């Protein structure tokens, strides 16, 4: 149907559909008018009134019958057509269940993946943040001059103050920085993520408190005040409205609670959600935050209407230049970076999001093209049906409509399933949290996503359905009836295009599968490595020792021994030890090892080693083997000789038996005597996929200077407990708080889980790659299947002739399968070349396997060959079943 035709008919049909009553009334009026006139006419011819009326009615042939006929004429035809097409479509789809299943599955995956990706993109990038006019909000950080678009450091408080004082671009301007809070004064102290913000912070964002108020100028000099998050209010204060005015002890200081923010208030610096529990006000006298100092702070501003982020950045850069000139101690080489708040919050995920979206769109495109080729294959098989229907008088439009209805049906079923696929994928995504951060807007399917899905369904229907439908319905009756099946030459160009597509699909799946296989092997290697310590039956606790109480070495050590002693007394716990750095990370405390008797020079200042500060129970809790000498003991105290233990790797640096030798860990560090050697353990560097062993020197907590490494809130203590039965978290927390209720336990988990977490990135990568690899493989398989079965359908007659001439079934099989195999081999060749080029870039993510591992390549190639053969064997079997008599009868 021509579109201009629709302009007329659609309103009419909609009217008859939705305005039934009115149409009915008009019909009544029209017929009554007719009867009246006719009666008048007959009366004028000399009949009586009654007779005239009777004749008029007779002429009309029964008013009700006529009405019914009129209704019939108006009946909404397309609904009936659709109904008929749908029923016919269902029949056709049921007739070839394998094709239907493949098509629906392909669409469900393709559309599902797209809905999933769109939902994620929607939550991160499309939906606005929950602030007043969020598009006006910018976050201001500093970047280096050579990479001006990447935030590098936080501005100092002095910078912030100057910007606020001198700039004119902003309606409002405020500052914020992360500041965790340890809440004490309750039965067990707890640590919460938090922020310290300037007055005017909430006004800048334009969000009022849900109950109570936010900060204002009078708070600057009064007692310390805090605003709670909705979640903190619910969990810690039972959502009671009486919370306003109550006091809460945070980091050893008493704060008055003045307000609670609404649930969807989620302000982030960079894209790190720390689920802030409390905001405290930056008051005068906060250490580091005055005009002489440069305490870190992120600035957030609301641009005046009409002011762009660029011009604001130019203004602030000017101010900063003058400031840098004024204060020679300001760090050099930095510039101001103004970015939109939402852009800042999506800085690291944006690239991944676009990649994800592009990938799934590509997958869908491939799926559509594949389906298209499958459908063309099918359409050729249905050519006779089309020819006969045309011969019987069917116009081309209803045929196209029929075919599109069938395809629409496929797309509809596919996308309904796709919604489920997307739902499952979203659940998994949120649970796995692969970016390590979730957007402030919940990732969910909303009306926008559903509209997108509907649009996608229509688009895919047209994309994969229109070409085959047009091609199938383009029937020249004369030639088609005469020469069935000679049309093969017509599809030559599209055939070549599809072959190219299939070849590239095979190449792509080889590349992805090789990468997936390398990643999986990496994972297996990582998980099977002996680590040098036990993980079974070990619980890891992280305590935070608050600064005001424990920033003195003696108290730090005393508390550690006390808390370990209490924990060890719990039933089921055999050993307890602690360290000031986590077991699984390297290089947190570096040291420069100098050994008695080894010369130091300018070029060789000593050995770079790791330093780890541990309690005396640390080694036995983790089951580390003592190779020589002794472990630390309670006798190694502050006032006794300074001691150290080295691991095997460090022992090699000595060139002789280290036990009894004297060492130093830095120029300021006291001389220590080595008392033992322990076996090496393996750890991981941040962001590096490999277990490594490095030279490490252990020193006892009693003889360390832990106080130096205190942050503004406190110092972490990593406790490891070993025993047959692990006590409950509640017991552990209770035990810690019984020693000092001011010390919060921030995490409790089995060491095994902590070790597993080191694999989360490698395992995520291997899962994602394997997933995409399988999708690509499935696409390649359907692609081969589509092409081969199409050609079988086209060549039925040829095959019949060959068989009639004496070709055996196996020859026919070879003929058909050979076609698929040729495509597969070409694809493999290309794929291997590409994979060899690309996997080099993976080397940094691999462990225990090389990027060009030949076995991997061979295995993946074999799998692909197998799949390709299988995909062409199915249509080949159909070819073998060709009955020469039947095939030739159509001559």
């Amino acid at each position, binding site marked *: 149907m021509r579109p201009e035709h629709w302009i*007329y008919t659609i309103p009419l049909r909609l009217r008859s559909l939705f305005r039934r009553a009115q149409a009915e009334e008009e019909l009544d009026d*029209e017929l009554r008018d007719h009867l009246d006139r*006719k009666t008048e006419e007959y009366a004028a011819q000399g009949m009586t009134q009654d007779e005239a009326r009777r004749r008029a009615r007779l002429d009309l*042939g029964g008013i009700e019958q006529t009405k019914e006929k*009129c209704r019939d004429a108006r009946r909404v035809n397309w609904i009936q057509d659709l109904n008929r097409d749908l029923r016919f479509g269902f029949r056709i789809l049921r007739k070839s269940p394998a094709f239907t299943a493949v098509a629906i599955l392909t669409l469900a995956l393709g559309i599902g993946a797209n809905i999933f990706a769109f939902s994620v993109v929607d939550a991160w990038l499309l939906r606005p943040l929950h602030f007043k006019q969020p598009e006006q909000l910018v976050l201001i950080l500093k970047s280096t001059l050579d990479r001006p678009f990447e935030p590098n450091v936080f501005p100092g408080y002095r910078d912030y103050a100057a910007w606020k004082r001198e700039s004119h671009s902003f309606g409002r301007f405020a500052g914020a920085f992360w500041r965790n809070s340890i809440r004490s004064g309750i039965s067990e102290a707890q640590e919460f993520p938090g922020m310290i913000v300037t007055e005017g912070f909430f006004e800048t964002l334009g969000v009022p408190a849900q109950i109570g108020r936010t900060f204002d100028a009078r708070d600057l000099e009064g007692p310390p005040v805090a605003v709670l998050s909705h979640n903190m209010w619910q969990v810690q204060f039972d959502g009671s409205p009486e919370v306003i005015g109550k006091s809460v002890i945070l980091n050893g200081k008493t704060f008055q609670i003045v307000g609670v923010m609404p649930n969807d208030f989620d302000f982030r610096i960079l894209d790190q959600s720390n689920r802030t529990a409390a905001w405290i006000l930056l008051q005068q006298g906060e250490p580091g935050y005055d005009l002489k100092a440069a305490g870190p702070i992120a600035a957030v501003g609301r641009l005046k209407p009409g002011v762009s982020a660029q011009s604001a950045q130019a203004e602030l850069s000017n101010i900063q230049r003058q400031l840098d000139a004024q204060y020679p101690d300001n760090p050099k080489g930095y510039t101001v970076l103004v970015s939109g708040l939402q852009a800042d919050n999506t800085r690291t995920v944006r690239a991944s999001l676009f990649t994800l979206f592009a990938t799934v769109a590509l997958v869908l495109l491939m799926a559509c093209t594949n389906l298209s080729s499958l459908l063309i294959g099918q359409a050729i098989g249905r050519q006779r049906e089309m020819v006969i229907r045309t011969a019987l008088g069917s116009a081309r439009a209803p045929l196209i409509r029929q075919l599109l209805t069938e395809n629409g049906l496929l797309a509809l079923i596919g996308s309904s399933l796709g919604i489920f696929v997307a739902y499952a994928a979203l659940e998994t995504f949120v649970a796995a949290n692969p970016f390590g951060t979730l957007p402030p807007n919940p990732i969910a399917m909303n009306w926008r996503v559903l509209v997108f899905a509907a649009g996608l369904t229509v688009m895919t229907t047209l994309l994969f359905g229109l070409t085959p439908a047009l091609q199938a319905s383009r029937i020249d009756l004369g030639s088609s009836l005469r020469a069935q099946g000679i049309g093969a030459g017509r599809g030559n160009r599209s055939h070549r295009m599809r072959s190219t597509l299939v070849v590239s699909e095979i190449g792509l799946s080889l590349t992805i599968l090789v990468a997936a296989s390398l990643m999986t092997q990496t994972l297996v290697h990582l998980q099977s490595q002996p680590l040098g310590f036990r993980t079974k039956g070990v619980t890891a606790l992280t305590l935070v020792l608050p600064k005001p109480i424990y920033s003195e070495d003696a108290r730090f050590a005393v508390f550690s021994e006390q808390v370990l002693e209490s924990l060890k007394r719990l039933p089921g716990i055999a050993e307890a030890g602690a360290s000031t750095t986590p077991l699984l990370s390297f290089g947190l405390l570096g040291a420069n090892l100098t050994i008695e008797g080894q010369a130091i020079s300018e070029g060789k200042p000593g050995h770079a080693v790791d330093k780890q500060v541990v309690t005396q129970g640390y080694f036995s809790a983790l089951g580390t083997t003592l190779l020589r000498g002794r472990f630390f003991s309670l006798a190694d105290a502050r006032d006794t000789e300074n001691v150290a233990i080295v691991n095997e790797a460090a022992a090699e640096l000595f060139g002789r038996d280290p036990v009894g030798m004297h060492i130093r860990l830095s120029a300021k560090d006291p001389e220590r005597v080595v008392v033992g050697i322990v076996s090496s353990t393996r750890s991981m560097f941040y962001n590096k996929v490999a277990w490594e062993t490095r030279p490490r020197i252990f020193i006892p907590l009693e003889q360390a200077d832990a106080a130096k490494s205190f942050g503004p809130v406190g110092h972490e203590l990593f406790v490891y407990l070993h025993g047959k039965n692990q006590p409950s978290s509640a017991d552990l927390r209770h035990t810690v708080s019984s020693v000092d209720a001011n010390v919060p336990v921030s995490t409790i988990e089995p060491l095994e889980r902590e070790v597993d977490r080191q694999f989360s990135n490698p395992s995520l990568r291997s899962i994602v790659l394997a997933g995409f690899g399988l999708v690509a493989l499935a696409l390649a398989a359907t692609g081969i299947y589509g092409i081969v079965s199409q050609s079988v359908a086209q060549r039925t007659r040829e095959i019949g002739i060959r068989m009639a001439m004496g070709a055996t079934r196996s020859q026919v099989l070879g003929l058909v399968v050979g076609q698929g195999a040729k495509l597969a081999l070409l694809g493999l060749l290309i794929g291997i070349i590409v994979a060899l080029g690309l996997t080099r870039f993976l080397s940094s993510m691999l462990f225990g396997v090389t990027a060009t591992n030949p076995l991997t390549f061979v295995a993946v190639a074999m799998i692909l060959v197998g799949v390709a053969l299988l995909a062409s064997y199915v249509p080949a079997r159909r070819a073998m079943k060709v009955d020469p008599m039947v095939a030739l009868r159509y001559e």
Partner: protein
Amino acid sequence: MSKPSDLVQGTLDMLLLKILALEPMNGFAVSQRLKQVSGDVLQVSDGSLYPALHKLQQEGWITAEWKTSENGRRAKYYSLTRLGRRQLEKETDNWGRVSSAISRVIKLGEA
């Protein structure tokens, strides 16, 4: 049983379009005009006239509009659309071809 009014479907459509092409009129007037111009040969029963008109309207070839008629009564007036005009041309062409072909065949039989 065949009545003279049993026109081939499609032919009736063409006739109605042709009549409405002259001027917009209501259903009653259409039936009068049909009788008048065909000299009572092509009698279309009122019972099939209205469904036919409704069908043409549904196809978008004619539109209907309620107007007050010459004697003050409200009546439904049909008029041809642009599409209807095009359809009429097409059908007239077709008709010319078919009818000449048929008459040639008939003459063949007589010869």
